């Protein structure tokens, strides 16, 4: 599926410092999201890059709450649709705009449930067809809007309401799947990002926007309500996910992997620092933490050896 060609016009780095962040917000106050919501921050930053001529396609999820009729916080168009067909709707909009001869960007914004699980077939189809839009998955590692259910983005041993803690159950028994690699295998631009590194994220949205074909970004966001921490620590916690190596920052262009952040062997923080900061990992024993640390270390060994497709995701 390498027929879409490489990225063009990527040499210019637009967002080098925080001073380059546009002053205008395209999403304004009065939203009904939880205080400290990472998903809304991701949408706000993505819209700063996408610009005013954008259609936002919203898969059902937390961001459905934004436009409670008759009010909307948006200054750009937004269309709601069911959880499974956000990418199909975006495909339709891309082709309609082409027929009307109008130059507009399409941004698809869906949660991890809508991307990893339910909306995967429509997203995969859109990537294979080479439809030109940006898909940002705001990944809070659970079905947050319906009350913290398990999704395939949930990490190992995390507590959710469908993977509870008891004598026999120790939270989620499965490790998460790596969506950015799956999308990278389609031959499209695919990247992981994190709200704690907003400039890196905005640069990646810029690349995805310029890429001819689907640009996919898997964005790790904090979720104070379901992860269980003080809202003010949100950015610090997702930053720790990157600094401990649990959430690798990389991008895949034309089947080649580029690691964005790697301090070197043995220089990552211990994973305990990330796990102990949240209630959903409160039950972990020392043995389980060691197991996670081992999995993360092994993954990074494979990354450094260039064995990209063999990595076993934590």
């Amino acid at each position, binding site marked *: 599926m390498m027929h879409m060609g490489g990225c063009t016009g990527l040499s210019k780095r637009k967002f080098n410092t925080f001073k380059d962040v546009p002053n205008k917000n395209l999403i304004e106050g009065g939203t009904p999201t939880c205080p*400290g919501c990472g998903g809304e*921050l991701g949408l706000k930053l993505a819209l700063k890059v996408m610009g005013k001529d954008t259609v936002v396609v919203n898969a059902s999820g937390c961001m459905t709450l934004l436009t409670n009729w008759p009010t*909307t916080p948006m200054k750009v168009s937004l269309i709601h649709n069911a959880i499974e067909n956000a990418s199909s709707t975006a495909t339709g909009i891309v082709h309609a705009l082409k027929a009307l001869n109008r130059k507009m960007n399409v941004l698809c914004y869906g949660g991890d449930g809508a991307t990893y699980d339910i909306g995967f077939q429509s997203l995969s189809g859109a990537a294979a067809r080479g439809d030109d839009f940006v898909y940002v998955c705001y990944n809070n590692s659970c079905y947050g809007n319906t009350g913290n259910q398990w999704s395939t983005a949930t990490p190992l041993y995390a507590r959710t309401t469908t993977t509870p803690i008891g004598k026999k159950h120790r939270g989620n028994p499965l490790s998460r799947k790596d969506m950015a690699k799956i999308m990278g295998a389609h031959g499209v631009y695919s990247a992981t990002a994190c709200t704690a590194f907003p400039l890196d994220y905005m640069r990646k949205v810029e690349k995805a926007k310029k890429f001819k074909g689907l640009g996919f970004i898997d964005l790790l966001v904090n979720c104070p309500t379901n992860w269980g921490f003080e809202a003010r620590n949100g950015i610090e916690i997702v930053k720790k996910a990157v600094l401990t190596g649990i959430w690798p920052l990389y991008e895949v262009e034309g089947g080649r992997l580029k690691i964005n952040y790697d301090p070197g062997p043995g220089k990552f923080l211990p994973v305990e620092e990330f796990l102990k900061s949240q209630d959903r990992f409160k039950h972990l024993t020392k043995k389980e933490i060691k197991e996670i640390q081992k999995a993360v270390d092994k993954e990074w060994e494979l990354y450094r050896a260039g064995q990209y497709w063999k990595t076993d995701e934590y």
Partner: protein
Amino acid sequence: MSKVLKYSYDFEKGVPVMPANASARKNKTGTWRIWKPEINYDKCVKCKICFTLCPHGAISWKGKPVIDYTFCKGCLICADNCPVKAINFEREVK
């Protein structure tokens, strides 16, 4: 309900007309606040980090960061991420 009737309804298309005009500004989410952040402009280095990281569009940029207390939900992400600790916070008094 009188407020709802202000919005027109497109009977041909069968959809309510809802222009993208940031009309959610009617919802005063500032009433949710427990902690109130305040910027100390003497210390502020105008790095734009609080403006970038505010999730709710409550900080606007007018040459310096300005907090709009009508919408600030008091998550204190700005205070936690300020590199020079120029944002103080105290218990909200109503």
